[in-house]
């Protein structure tokens, strides 16, 4: 559609006066520092500083907009670029990028590699730095709220006898002392309908009656608790939540621009990434637990034993 003679013939377009949708075919030409517009009943010259030109987008029709609201729409993108060559030069980089398949392939690589790098190497340290700034008091408050919600929705009071609980709490205290000093951790008991133990932000570890009943001996229980102490010492719950949130914000920013057809397509990446983070945290907790158990004279293999009971 672009001919080498278009500059002498002028650029063709449709003129709109800005008040009605009627259009008049016109021809544009460059006269020094002005643009001339000629057509049936249209004869006007515009100084360039009163002319705006839409950025080029592929081969789509774009408009020249004049100071009085009138416009000229044209499909002759090459011709428009030639008319206003200074402006065309400024945005040539983008038109080239969007037009070349080589650029597109490079962009695919950038998106995948950059995205993965960002999520794997930039987000976690960032989230951790934020986690460090959060005062322990805030974590405690958070933990209380979380436990409160869990108590209302899922848990029932424990049915373990008092002496048994004291026994386990004492062993838990000894386990703590064997490891790195930190805030004192508390052991809580609940009945939840399934064997489980987990760390709550703020220093509480919750163990369910069903887990106590499932275990073969106290070594197994301590193995599980050592693992949970590992999670506590490394503040995994808080870091995990922050990392998840950061991924959410990143995805939301990108998918705000990208059409996601169903909830599945945006939920899946978060789910996959969380699985990756968790493995990292599990390794940390396992390493910490290993040290604790060895230092307190208990068998680390007890952990494998109780896992097999599930």
């Amino acid at each position, binding site marked *: *559609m672009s001919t080498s003679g278009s500059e002498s*013939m002028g650029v*063709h377009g*449709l003129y*709109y006066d*800005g*008040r*009605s*949708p*009627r*259009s008049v075919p016109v021809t544009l030409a460059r006269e020094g520092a002005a643009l001339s517009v*000629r*057509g*049936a009943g249209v*004869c006007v010259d515009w100084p360039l500083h009163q002319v705006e030109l839409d*950025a080029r*987008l*592929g*081969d*789509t*029709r774009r*408009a020249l907009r004049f100071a009085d*609201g009138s*416009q000229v*729409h044209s*499909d*002759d993108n090459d011709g428009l670029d030639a008319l206003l060559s200074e402006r065309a030069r400024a945005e040539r980089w983008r038109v080239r990028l*969007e*037009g*070349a*398949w080589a650029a*597109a392939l*490079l962009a*695919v690589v*950038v*998106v*995948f590699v*950059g995205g993965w790098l*960002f999520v794997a190497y930039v987000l976690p340290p960032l989230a951790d730095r934020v986690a460090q700034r*959060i005062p322990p008091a*805030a974590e405690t*408050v*958070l933990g209380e*709220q*979380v436990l409160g*919600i869990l108590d209302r929705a899922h848990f029932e009071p424990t049915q373990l006898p008092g002496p048994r609980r004291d026994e386990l709490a004492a062993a838990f205290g000894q386990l703590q002392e064997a490891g790195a000093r930190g805030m004192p951790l508390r052991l809580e008991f609940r009945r939840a309908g399934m064997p489980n133990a987990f760390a709550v932000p703020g220093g509480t570890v919750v163990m369910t009656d069903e887990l106590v009943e499932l275990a073969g001996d106290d070594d197994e229980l301590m193995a599980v608790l050592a693992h949970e102490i590992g999670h506590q010492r490394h503040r995994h719950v808080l870091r995990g*939540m922050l990392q998840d*949130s950061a991924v959410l*914000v990143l995805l939301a*920013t*990108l998918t*705000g*621009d*990208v*059409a*996601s*057809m*169903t909830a*599945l*397509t945006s939920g899946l990446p978060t789910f996959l990434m969380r699985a990756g983070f968790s493995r990292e945290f599990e390794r940390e907790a396992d390493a910490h637990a290993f040290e604790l158990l060895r230092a307190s004279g208990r068998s680390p293999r007890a952990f494998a034993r109780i896992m097999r009971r599930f």
Partner: protein
Amino acid sequence: MMHVAAASADDLPIPSTPPPPAVLEYDFVETLPFRFSGQTGEYFRIWIVNLALTLLTLGIYSAWAKVRTQRYFYAHTSVAGAPFEYLARPVPILIGRLIAAALFAAYLATANLAPAYEPFALLALLVAIPWIVVRSLAFRAHNSAWRSLRFGFAGSTGRAYVEYLLWYVPVLFTFGLLWPYVAWRQKRFMVSNHRYGGQPFAFQARVTEFYVIWLLAIAGVVGLIVSIIVLMGVIGAASGALSSQGGDDAEARIWLVMVPAMVLIYGGYFAIFVYIQTATTNLVLNATDLASNRLLSRLRFRHMLWLYLSNTVAILATVGLAIPWARIRMARYRASRTQLVPHGDLDAFVAESARTQRAIGQEIGDFFDVDLGF
């Protein structure tokens, strides 16, 4: 007065869409189809480059990317030989997105660090929705144009609070029976407050038409529940027989039966959702008119269902790379099933006095995934 040799028809370039007729006057009912001329190859390159630039600029470029995407889809959609235009500038969009991001971060902070207060944060969000709706509609309308005239949205925020907040109270009290009526009110608010060329749009749908869609959807849900109950019964019998054989194998076999059941459940609800979307879009577009010019929308449920399903599968299989293809496909189908039924002189529209709207409204709307359009 200077005159260049008058341009004749021979001098006109060959435009990408057919040239508009000299006078747009229609004496008889004739339909003008919408056309979508976008190409997957071209759009993929634009999309991926914009995505890379957005990533490299940590999201700042997303406002420019949004403008280019919208311009692309608008410019490739045309009716009566004339394409649409998207006129928004990137900087107002960027400001809106930064504000939206800050609000979103505040909501996340509340949800994660003070979960007991999350309901309050959610409530604050709900209260802001009618305001967001009005700003978004106004921004989008004002920045959309056809044949050089902008659209407009004249709905007031006060009215939006009535339609998008207050009317939900009776819906709750009637256990949802009033929902189609409220949906009708909201669509009426949305359509009848849009303007083009000095004229308001009119909304001609009746409340009963909304109830028909709703009742059919309910019937679909009931049918789905019945078939799930039947299926559960079959599964119960089957897994009973399977697990009695014992061993780890039984668990695997049970999953083999459960997975199709879950597919049926999700698939069923998905299909009902697509039905509601399709039927509502048709209903609203068919009921929209502008100075007696009408729209005709004939989206077919099974086409839309197939499109949504295949798009989702393709997007998952290509880790997102098929998104441009899916969007082009959907735009092409929708345009092919939409027509303008003109009446009278399409040139008789007049520009409205300009009003500037801030970008914030629309961008917050997009960011929080509030469904605003058809």
